[in-house]
């Protein structure tokens, strides 16, 4: 018969303790998801009641979706739930598994640290040249500033995972 340890991990299992509470990302995720659903639903209702639609909702919804990907993505990095090939990384002796888990976390850190630097440069350009968004006409950097900010957060979460995997027995 099978033992519980051989079963696939349960997503509902308790979170590992993190220095910065995951509640921050979780609450933001919940708020953004709820907003996305409410805005789109309101758009449907308004269109049927008044034959008009808010043109600004599309641009704002896309922005919210990008925020969702980054914010909830940050939580998923901390919980180590990214899609990856577990076949080789999750088998073999514990030392190898731990080393590969740390390597994976380090690569995520590297990518998002790079992303933070590069996207800061883009936001700076958009600020300098006063670019405005095509739909609503607000400054572009209002939208894009969240890419470097959240990239730093994701890189931090990856670093946290790297440290925690290092401490594991």
């Amino acid at each position: 018969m099978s033992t519980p340890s051989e079963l696939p991990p349960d997503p509902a299992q308790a979170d590992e303790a993190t220095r910065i509470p995951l509640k921050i990302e979780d609450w933001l995720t919940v708020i953004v998801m709820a907003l996305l659903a409410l805005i789109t639903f309101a758009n449907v209702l308004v269109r049927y009641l008044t034959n008009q639609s808010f043109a600004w909702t599309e641009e704002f919804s896309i922005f919210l979706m990008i925020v969702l990907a980054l914010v909830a993505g940050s939580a998923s990095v901390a919980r180590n739930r990214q899609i990856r090939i577990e076949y080789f990384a999750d088998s073999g002796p514990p030392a190898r598994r731990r080393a590969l888990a740390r390597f994976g976390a380090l690569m995520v850190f590297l990518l998002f640290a790079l992303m933070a630097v590069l996207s800061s440069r883009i936001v700076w350009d958009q600020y300098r040249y006063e670019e405005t968004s095509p739909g609503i006409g607000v400054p572009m950097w209002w939208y894009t500033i969240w890419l470097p900010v959240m990239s730093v957060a994701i890189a931090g979460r990856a670093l946290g995972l790297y440290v925690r995997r290092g401490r594991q027995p």
Partner: protein
Amino acid sequence: MIPTLLFVAFLALMLLGVPIGAALGLAGAVAIALANADAQWFGLLAVPQNFYAGLGKYPLLAIPMFVLVGSIFDRSGVALRLVNFAVAIVGRGPGMLPLVAIVVAMFLGGISGSGPANAAAVGAVMIAAMSRAGYPPAYSASVVGAAAATDILIPPSVAFIVYSVLVPGASVPALFAAGMIPGVLAGLALILPTVWLARKHSMGALEASLPRPPFWRSLRDATWGLFAPVLILGGMRAGWFTPTEAAVVAVFYGLFVGMVVHRTIRVRDLFVILRESGELSAVILLVVSLAGIFAFSLSTLGVIDPVTDAIVNSGLGEYGVLALLILLLITVGMFLDGVSIFLIFVPLLWPIVQHYNWDPVWFGVILTLKVALGQFTPPLAVNLMVSCRIAGVRMEETVRWVGWMLVSMFMVMVAVIVWPQLALWLPHTLGY
């Protein structure tokens, strides 16, 4: 030199268990930097630009919303009532409960857009019921995992949304319509080996002694669930909603059914539902956006055309190439999930599709059928992971059952390849 490096780096990172998104993004960034060694900042400013552009597409918004629909209907109590209704129709007998599991999974496929959510909803109800009736847990887990794979073929489907974002010539409504007939055929194809195995091994002997629910009462209870796909698919067909809006309407319908009618969702559950579906969507969306960087590096390096030429001029012929592609995808599919397969391979295969003038919608259905097969092919089978967890068995134990179902569904894929009209007739008739 650089293209080879791109692929070797990407493969090595993936096999070492680095998250797919990070592997795609890093390999892409390194290739861009090497190709633009003289440019300002090594041309790397394209990295965040492509990240942002890969994500900033309105159709993608349907993904978090359909994931949310799946999560809500998972808890809405609809699955249990549909099962009771189905049992009331087909009655009790050997092989009937697995049949009900498949039919209900197909039906829920018309509400939710992702296989694992479907496996969770059906598994939660059916696996316990099947073990009470005397079916071995490994068999039940195989049936549920395989049946839930029809979900991504039967509209709505997250896989089709991702494909349509990647391929300009295939609209979401056309893909949804094209998946309908192959999806139903796949479900029917699963019923055959399932019932045959149940009879052959005389499983579920206790089933005949269980009570049969009364027909009219179970029909009344199931009405709310039965109406959901009518609302989603009918609303899209009638032009009332876009796919994204249909998903949102389904979200509120599901919340109403779960919170007011069946009272299985409490207010405090909303936090968990929104958080989990948000996180799952983000995992998918991050891979989508990071794959944008990889695709950009492929196109700037000009890797695709030489590879296409080599394949097209290999003398294999149209069907030889198609067979080779399917063999490749089946191998890859044992390790990679469906969305990642689409994101990595569709940009690579697209010139081949154009060379042979394959219909993009038909090709999308073939790829999705292949991904559906991958969802219950061990060792990396997302649906089986979910159903095995519910049944408390290891995936290795399902191999002896799942093989028959794989062969049966594979035949459906062959049929769609041989008769493309199985996929294309419905979208043409509906005028998409």
